[in-house]
């Protein structure tokens, strides 16, 4: 039996964990058809771990939904498969390719796959009749997220209206929706990037290997280090270099840059973040850099 906390104190990680588990159970109890949006990134893996804890020893009472951009890192997909197998979870894959073929998404050759995910995601939610979709968003990520609710109401078009948000008091969540609408649920709202890493470290959670430093051929473009691969090849006088790098976020591989790093384990990553002076999105996500309000615009359209 685990020892009692003599002083009845809970650390911030224990309190955040308790709050997130509460949210998972509340949604499972009140919504007809929830789904967990799983990107394979560290935040969605922490979500999955918390969901596992919330319903243990029962299996997850909802499936996972992954939007396959066709440009996901192999390491991310293999970690996904390992989690799905261990939990015996059901996985629904919504493919951007299929959404383009079905006409839900228009590929104009300019829009990034991360942005095209919106159409594929909304189509999958509608087709499957999901009424609540868990997302790994955190309020510390970006200014537009700071005002997001834990339960974020979306209309028939999957849109978020920041001026029409419901007040959210105590731990009393209001899950009322009309037919055709759905709710985005953010169980990690109050976690920071550092909390996530401390938790991964404490719980020894399996995450994709590309989060840790490894040798990789990269090219520097627009101030970002991009990994050489089928889509990324040196242009003009760009130099291909072999560097020790790691990824701070794992999105579409044509848009996600890596950073030089020697951090090969979670403790080293935490130390590295301590002296990192640039936000994780600002450093390595091309899609957030176009305008200061980029995230706000995508959220209104129904982005994660």
């Amino acid at each position, binding site marked *: 039996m*685990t020892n009692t906390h003599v002083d009845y104190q809970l650390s*911030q990680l224990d309190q955040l964990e308790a709050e997130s588990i509460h949210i998972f159970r509340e949604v499972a*109890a009140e919504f007809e058809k929830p789904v967990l949006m799983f990107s394979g990134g560290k935040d969605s893996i922490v979500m999955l771990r918390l969901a596992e804890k919330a319903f243990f020893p029962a299996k997850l009472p909802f499936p996972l939904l992954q939007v396959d951009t066709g440009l996901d890192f192999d390491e991310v997909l293999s970690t996904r498969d390992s989690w799905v197998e261990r939990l015996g979870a059901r996985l629904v894959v919504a493919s951007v390719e299929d959404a383009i073929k079905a006409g839900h998404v228009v590929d104009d050759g300019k829009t990034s796959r991360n942005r095209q995910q919106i159409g594929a995601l909304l189509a999958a939610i509608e087709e499957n009749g999901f009424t609540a979709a868990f997302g790994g968003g955190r309020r510390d990520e970006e*200014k537009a997220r700071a005002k997001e609710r834990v339960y974020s109401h979306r209309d028939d078009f999957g849109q978020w209206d920041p001026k029409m948000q419901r*007040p959210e008091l*105590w731990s009393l969540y209001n899950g009322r929706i009309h037919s055709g609408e759905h709710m985005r649920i953010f169980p990690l709202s*109050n976690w920071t990037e550092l909390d996530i890493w401390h938790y991964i470290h404490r719980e020894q959670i399996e995450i994709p290997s590309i989060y840790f430093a490894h040798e990789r051929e990269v090219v520097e473009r627009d101030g970002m280090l991009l990994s050489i691969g089928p889509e990324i090849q040196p242009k003009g006088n760009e130099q291909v270099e072999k560097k020790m790098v790691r990824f701070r976020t794992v999105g579409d591989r044509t848009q996600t840059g890596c950073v030089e790093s020697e951090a090969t384990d979670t403790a080293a990553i935490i130390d590295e973040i301590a002296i990192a002076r640039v*936000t994780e999105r600002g450093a390595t996500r091309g899609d957030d850099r176009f305008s200061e309000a980029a995230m*706000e615009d995508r959220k209104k359209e129904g982005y994660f």
Partner: protein
Amino acid sequence: MASNDPHTAAQGEMDLLRFATAGSVDDGKSTLIGRLLLDSKSIFEDQLEAVESTSQSKGYDYTDLALLTDGLRSEREQGITIDVAYRYFATPNRKFIIADTPGHIQYTRNMVTGASTADLGLVLVDARQGLTEQSRRHAVLLSLLRVPHLVLAINKMDLVDWSEEVYEKIHREFTTFATKLNIPDLEVIPISALQGDNVVNRSENTPWYSGPTLMHHLEHVHVASDRDLVDTRFPVQYVIRPKSDQYHDFRGYAGQVAGGVLKKGDEVVVLPSGMTSTISRVELFDQEIAEAFPPMSVTVHLEDDVDVSRGDMIARPKNAPKPSQDIDAMICWMTNEPLKPRQKLAIKHTTRTGRAMVKDIQYRLDVNSLHRDQEAGELGLNEIGRVQLRTTVPLLCDPYAKNRTTGSFILIDEATGVTVGAGMINSGS
């Protein structure tokens, strides 16, 4: 790296303080929050560069830290804050969650929301103005929401030449006013958010002030004893039944502890049925644990096969809330259409949902003068009043003053599904 850096792996476990800030743009609230984030190194270079360039392009003499917290583009365009925003920072021993509430627009609705989860309320006043109607109102709301700790930060002390006299006058005035409120713990701190005096570093300009800096107080204020560890309250949220071969007979009651301590061997009563049993096991994930206490989310097993479902509550036979359908509560109304007698709404209390009818609106509280208007008859947007409700299901409730979880509820408009009211229970019968 210094060992007292909050961000090392070894420092992963710290405690948590949630606080709500109140004040208007003019009081320097955004500047203060920007200062706390900056001085605790929670601001990154790209964020700082963005506000520095914006400040320059607007022709300001200094970097406007307030820009760090102006989130939505529509707000930046209008130069106002329209909603509660949550911010995060950490020092070596504590993580902080700030519920940042706007001062002007929809202040009551937003402040009540922000204060509902806060351990501490931070009210800002401009030293040149002294206490205003708005700062009194903020204190009233924090008191009504039973936020146990209050800090009155007297800002812009640099603009009154660091006058001890000014500080003492505002301090006295506030203490006198606060005697009418429920404020168990008060700290009054003279600061300059713009220059950083007494925010993180002790100011040389206030030799007459011997109290803590704001950051020191936030880091050390004792919040653990604010929880109720005596009166056992466990609202059942979800029944876990794996229905698998391995866990064939597993039946666990999952929920978040709202009060008291639960442990194996405790005699318990299940409400509203009144059936009694004994706790046979308390679990957190795959571990059996010795005790569960607030705010842990755990799974409880009972010795007997009693009927327990979501919405029920596990308490102690000699210490249990009385199931009540007649509820006397303070309600904060949050929508344009006023609350009127005979109105019917959905009510959510702990994990229980039912319907409620307004029997009577006893009075409307003027949050500036504390005057009770018994002729009001209805409650408009952002108004607070004492209301009698009749519910379709019995609520397993405590007075809000005793337990903020089992004493609170929300009201939902059944047609729109929108949250329209927040309630704090005085008593139930």
